[in-house]
């Protein structure tokens, strides 16, 4: 009696680590405008990410989780979603958020310990960062349900990490997406680590994509450093969801090139050699090689673009540093739609205290 059912989910990949294109590759491999758009946005988010780490090191913001190495996934998601769709991030989604319209100032403010970072003035329907692992999955399912109830053609796209796949809510959300046929796409950023816990210690499955089988939904595994494969896979999944043809779980295989956060020191638990190898496979480099091979990118463009990025980033940092502080009473005023009577006295006391602290400093 065979008791371990066989399943095979291939890795979809077109652009090799050294920028070579596979023989049969999708149309988008020739769409150099689109590819340049991706390249530029990976570069932008990488430079911004670097600045965020610098801001943390200089005490201007708090703990920050770098998305170094994973930017391709975010850039494709951020580019393919429509404005009316809802993007439900985890906390390592700087690349996606920039493309969704989240302002750099907002991102800095959020990690700087200021709720105003969650304003999302340009994309008010998107969800804010979600820190408790995997809890955002069921929100995305609820949002997709709302679209379905209202017969709207929007979709919800939610991201998480490989570690998140061990949490029960991950499966609960996939399962309901299957049984209610929800317009939902779930993207796992499999960056091989959950803080110090390697991917193999989270699950015995060969792939994370096969977890889709527990919910009866589609499951795809894609090279998360390959912009062309990502573009194809995400287009398919998003189209399928929008056409009410079912939810998809996408495992995007990538690598966390940085520490878990600025509070972490990854050298405690992982080998230098592994990281060095991963640097050979990161998404920017291979796309750069590919674009250059077809004369779609050159040193001049690179220099100009990096300079443009730096300027944009510096402006945002300056804006952030110039932001007046939040009012102390805000944490009372945004608690309920209306401040309940019992909190009025508390609010007054805390305002006095805040004023007091202000004069003392």
């Amino acid at each position: 009696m065979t008791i371990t059912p066989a399943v095979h989910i291939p890795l979809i990949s077109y652009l090799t680590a050294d920028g070579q294109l596979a023989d049969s590759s999708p149309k988008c491999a020739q769409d150099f405008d689109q590819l340049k758009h991706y390249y530029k946005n990976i570069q932008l988010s990488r430079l911004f990410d670097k600045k965020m780490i610098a801001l943390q090191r200089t005490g201007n913001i708090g703990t920050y989780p770098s998305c170094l190495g994973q930017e391709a996934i975010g850039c494709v998601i951020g580019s393919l979603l429509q404005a009316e769709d809802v993007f439900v991030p985890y906390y390592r989604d700087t690349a996606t958020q920039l493309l969704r319209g989240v302002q750099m100032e907002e991102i800095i403010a959020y990690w700087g310990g200021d709720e105003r970072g969650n304003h999302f003035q340009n994309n008010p329907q998107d969800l804010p960062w979600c820190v408790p692992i995997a809890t955002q999955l069921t929100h995305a399912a609820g949002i997709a349900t709302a679209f379905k109830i209202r017969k709207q053609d929007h979709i919800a796209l939610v991201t998480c990490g490989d570690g998140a796949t061990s949490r029960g809510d991950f499966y609960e959300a996939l399962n309901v997406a299957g049984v209610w046929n929800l317009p939902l796409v779930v993207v796992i950023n499999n960056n091989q680590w959950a803080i110090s816990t390697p991917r193999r210690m989270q699950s015995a499955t060969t792939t994370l994509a096969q977890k889709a089988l527990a919910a009866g939904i589609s499951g795809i595994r894609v090279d998360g450093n390959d912009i062309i494969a990502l573009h194809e896979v995400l287009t398919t999944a998003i189209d399928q969801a929008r056409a009410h043809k079912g939810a998809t779980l996408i495992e995007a295989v990538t690598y966390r090139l940085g520490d878990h956060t600025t509070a972490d020191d990854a050298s405690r638990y992982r080998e230098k050699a592994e990281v060095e190898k991963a640097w050979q496979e990161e998404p920017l480099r291979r796309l750069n090689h590919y674009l250059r091979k077809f004369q779609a990118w050159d040193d001049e463009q690179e220099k100009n673009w990096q300079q443009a990025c730096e300027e944009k980033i510096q402006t945002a940092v300056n804006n952030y540093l110039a932001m007046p502080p939040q009012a102390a009473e805000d944490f009372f005023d945004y608690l309920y739609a209306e401040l309940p009577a019992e909190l009025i006295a508390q609010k007054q006391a805390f305002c006095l205290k805040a004023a007091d602290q202000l004069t003392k400093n």
Partner: protein
Amino acid sequence: MEKTHEITLVEAINLALAHALEHNPDVVVLGEDVGANGGVFRATVHLREVFGSRRVIDTPLAENLIAGMSVGMAMQGLRPVAEIQFMGFIFSALEQIIDHASRMRHRTRGRLTCPLVLRAPYGGGIHAPEHHSESMEALFCHIPGLRVVTPSSPTRAYGLLLSAIDCPDPVIFLEPNRLYRSVKHRLFDDGKRIPLDRCLTSRVGSDITLISWGSMMQETMLAAEQLAQQGIEAEVIDVATLKPLDTETLLASIKKTHRCVIIHEAARSGGWGAEISARLMEQGFDYLSAPIQRVTGADTIMPYYQKENIYLPSVEDILAAVRKILP
């Protein structure tokens, strides 16, 4: 404005749900067995037939999912009213309630909000199996950003539930299952709300203040009647909205009576009676002639049903506490 017969508390819940579904297209009812079965207590009976399975939704068996999806739906502008089959099964939903339902408005400074209602029957006294008799309201009352509401009669159930559904913020709506069928009120389906955030004075008196909520309001009112026969006029206050607490009404009463007993079914230590007691003592110290008493369940696991009557506070327990502090 339809006239109805005398109805029970669970029927009043059903009426309020139907009213809300009819008058507000954003209202959605969801939960385990709320559809064809109409809920294990029949609180949602017939709703699916009338409003369809797009708005009255049987969910997979997962309370954390129900809560998390409700958060998602609420952020999209729907008004989910989710049933948790018993309070004993709400605990896996606590993470969503604490981390998201109660915080989304604060987190996003009002950009995204969570106008949702989580309904759950609660309390002992119905000879149910383990985990079907919990009174854990205090857990919710400690969570900033929540409202916690519990009715004590069919009329209050109807009016408070409609207000809870209107409420722009999350409400934990706890239904005393011991009262589901034991009391009947004649009530009109007129959509009349009872405001939240206000204690309801069920009996006026000037000798002592008895504070309670939910099913213990029965024993409390009985105790007040017995006291009246002895010439002692108790003021009885149904807290109704436990959080935020209407301190003003409570304080006004003890300023008048100078004596107070708080009655709840939940375990004593860290029960909501502790907060009420502490707060009234802080703010009404000079008016108190005697220490505020608490009549509560024990700090034990609620025993299996053969012993639940020992666990549950009785009229006699209330009278004993009153006697202790009367002059």
